[in-house]
């Protein structure tokens, strides 16, 4: 089977998306790499600064090879945001160096431009790479942005795909690995091209609001709210942004089934959303915006009336 190369670049990030990968479970990293699933066989990590073999200039060779088309087909993954290097250049410097080539700092943006028209597919892992995230938080000292803004609207990879965003701060390892495995299955013809939402997130991961799949949603329906941290009820009055966040964590846990933000009693901070970390996702302990709650209140009442009326219908099955 034709191998698919993976080039994983790190920009203005924290390596959290890489660490989270350790917790991926179904499939685990080992599963994917050893080809437990025959159709997902043959992923090769050509470049990943935190796991790759060599160091120094030799470590940069795969980037040159990819630029020359020698690693086709390759998937380009970015973790971390992209700075506006022209700001740093005004004072003769740089914001994000990822290597040293011939005695000169090689910046992230140079490499991204080299690979722009060569990548078979491009995946932005984590909210920083997708939308700028933390690095782009006000006042955005380095002019940080997501990869879609750097590559520009209408960008298409050589397979004709837009940049696929897999946001989260960090993205649960399982979501990252399921996306990469999915893309390989697409490349192998085993699955159709994934449907994306308006923020270029795969719907199979980001199709539901955290709020809808929260184990505490039943308490909301009964009007029971936590007023003190530690209480087991709906977290809506203690800062939870679940009604504006598309995220699977309340149902799946964060790592290997453990954790989960509102489900274990902490406020969702909507870290999967393009606005993160700005309002309405923050201040993090501030009550979430009222509009989704009003909408939900109305729907809730309609739902209860419907449910009651349906009780009077004759059972047909």
């Amino acid at each position, binding site marked *: 089977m034709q191998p698919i190369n993976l080039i994983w670049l790190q920009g203005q990030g924290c390596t959290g998306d890489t660490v989270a990968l350790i917790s991926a479970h179904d499939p685990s990293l080992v599963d994917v790499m050893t080809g437990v699933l025959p159709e997902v066989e043959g992923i090769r990590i050509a470049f990943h600064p935190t796991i790759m073999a060599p160091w120094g200039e030799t470590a940069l060779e795969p980037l040159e090879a990819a630029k020359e088309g020698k690693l086709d087909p390759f998937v380009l993954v970015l973790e971390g945001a992209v700075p506006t290097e022209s700001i740093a250049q005004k004072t003769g410097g740089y914001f994000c160096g990822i290597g040293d080539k011939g005695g000169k700092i090689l910046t992230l943006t140079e490499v991204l431009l080299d690979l722009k028209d060569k990548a078979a597919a491009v995946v932005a892992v984590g909210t920083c790479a997708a939308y700028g995230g933390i690095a782009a938080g006000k006042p955005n000292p380095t002019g940080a942005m997501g990869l879609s803004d750097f590559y520009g609207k209408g960008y298409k990879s050589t397979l004709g795909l837009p940049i696929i965003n897999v946001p989260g701060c960090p993205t649960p390892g399982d979501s990252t690995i399921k996306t990469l495995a999915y893309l390989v299955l697409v490349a192998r013809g085993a699955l159709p091209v994934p449907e994306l939402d308006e923020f270029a997130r795969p719907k199979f991961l980001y199709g539901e609001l955290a709020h809808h799949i929260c184990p505490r949603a039943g308490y909301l329906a009964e009007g029971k709210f936590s007023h003190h941290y530690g209480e087991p009820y709906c977290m809506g009055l203690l800062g939870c942004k679940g009604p504006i966040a598309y995220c699977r964590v309340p149902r799946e846990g964060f790592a290997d089934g453990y954790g989960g*933000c509102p489900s274990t009693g902490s406020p969702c901070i909507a870290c999967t959303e393009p606005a993160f970390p700005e309002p309405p996702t923050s201040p993090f302990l501030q009550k979430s915006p009222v509009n989704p709650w009003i909408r939900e209140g109305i729907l809730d009442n309609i739902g209860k009336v419907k449910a009651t009326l349906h009780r009077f219908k004759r059972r047909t099955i």
Partner: protein
Amino acid sequence: MAKMTELNIEPLTRIEGHMGVHAKADLEARKYTNAYCYATMFRGLEDIIKGREPADAIWLSQRACGVCPMPHAMASVLAVDMAYDAPPPPMGIAMRNLAAMAEEVYDGALGCGILEGPDYSEVIMSKANPEILGKANKTDAPNGAKHGYATIGDIMRGLNPISGSIWLQCLNASKVGLGMASNMGAKHPHLNNFVPGGVARTLEVTDLEAYYAGLAKEIAFSKELVLIFDDLLTFLSDNGLAEVGIFPPNLFSWGMYDDPYTYDAKYANMTKWGEKRALPPGIIINGKLITSDLVEMQVGVQETVTHSYYHDTPKAEFATDPLGNPLTKDHPWNEKTKPEAGAEKDWEGKYTWAKTPRWLDWKNRVDGKTHVLQANPISRMWVTALAGKSPESTGTSVKFTLPAGTVAGFNITEELTLEWKIPALNNALERVRARAYYHAYSAYQTYKLVLAAFEMIKKGETKVWNEYKRPRNGIGVGTAEAMRGGVAHWVVMKNGKTSNYQMITPTAWNVSPRDDQGRPGPYEAAIIDSPITESIEGELDGIDVVRTIRSFDPCLGCTVQVFNPEGSMLAGRELDHLHAEEVLEQHEHENEHGQGHCHLHHHHSH
């Protein structure tokens, strides 16, 4: 006649983040003569935190590091507790500690097995130090009967990336630790439930039980980890690597794990509750503990920018701390450094995005001057041993007993007494050894705290959070320990918003550049004068530089190491492939929770 060569290493792979080293070596004398270390990425996190509600820093500051976010959460929440005057109830403190401890066991396993250990694996040794490897193959491991590796050579094979059984066990232990941290912290990386006044987490006894089950695995793992690394590192130390990466015993630890019944978030009582930490705070100069007073320690912190891409702080805003102790203009409560990108590799001028933390001996315990200090697990263990404040401290060692327990896949079921002794040298090998012992000591402290938490539940002390009223103005400092050393955050709140926020990480101390007096930071100092032990064929690979820097553990996760791109690691993998599969299968069976293991797998593209 000196035969000089220069070495630029960037990316310095297999660490967290972006960093480069420029080293000069004398091939004739076989030693490194100079070194400059530099950080190559800037985001401006402190500026992003300013102007927001102070509590937001608990979430934002963690994003500094995805490998060790917890100590940022801890330092931040302690600083905000203080600024808000929001002391947590005992169970809230205990639950914060449990989340913190889970990160230490995940990170310790990762550091020993995946980051640093492979520098001494068979595949690396066969290229770098083939003679030592030859001898290792013929040397019995003193604890072989207990951990199951008959010779030192067997241990080195166990550390081979991807295929080695120790490597895989360590990755599995990391995964278990991340699960425990996510359990207690809602998620990890980036805990979501530290709030001023306690934790935002519903206390569920079933979750504590799951955490305890994870801990049992970590304890069983830790017994073998320490014995394996003891055998390996003592052998290497006796066989030519003892001189690599020496830094003088100038060390600090902020201490860790606040006592649930003493911590009250008040600066006026910080000396008192600081001393009650399970691991005490302290500063060691020239091998002597000069203070264990958190207030004295934090007042002495200075951050300067002589060789860093920032403008200096013009003047002090606060002449003293709230207790009247003098603050300099470079103390983090005063610090107002401004970033400005500058030219690269300007060794006489500015050359790094890292700032330069130093500690001022303001009470004149030694000489009344500033000192270059090293953060690390070895610093923590050293302070704990000397301070004599914890039951496990003997004055020259830290001695503790891990409980008995039978966990499938691990050999040692009986209890095991371990003793970490202050070493003769603070070198690369001893920093790795201290990390292995710290994993065990963390597991031991965690065990004690889980039992204490059960006791609290029996007594009905189940409250996890105290309500507080947010004041308009306040000031706070929070200190904690990451696996790789001390972290501290300073916050100043005006009109309900953060007007200044400063963070100093362990790697900031260690990777710091030359200071205003031209003294190198710990990484630089440890490389300078380090011998070249590698067997050189063609170009200098810099293994001793890399070993030195990795011994400080500059962050990061799953790393696979190999010598060169065509390297022997893949060959090693093929050879050992069957063995790897067996180990993987074994893990799968052992693990009822389905948390097998994972490993990051390297296939080179050529």
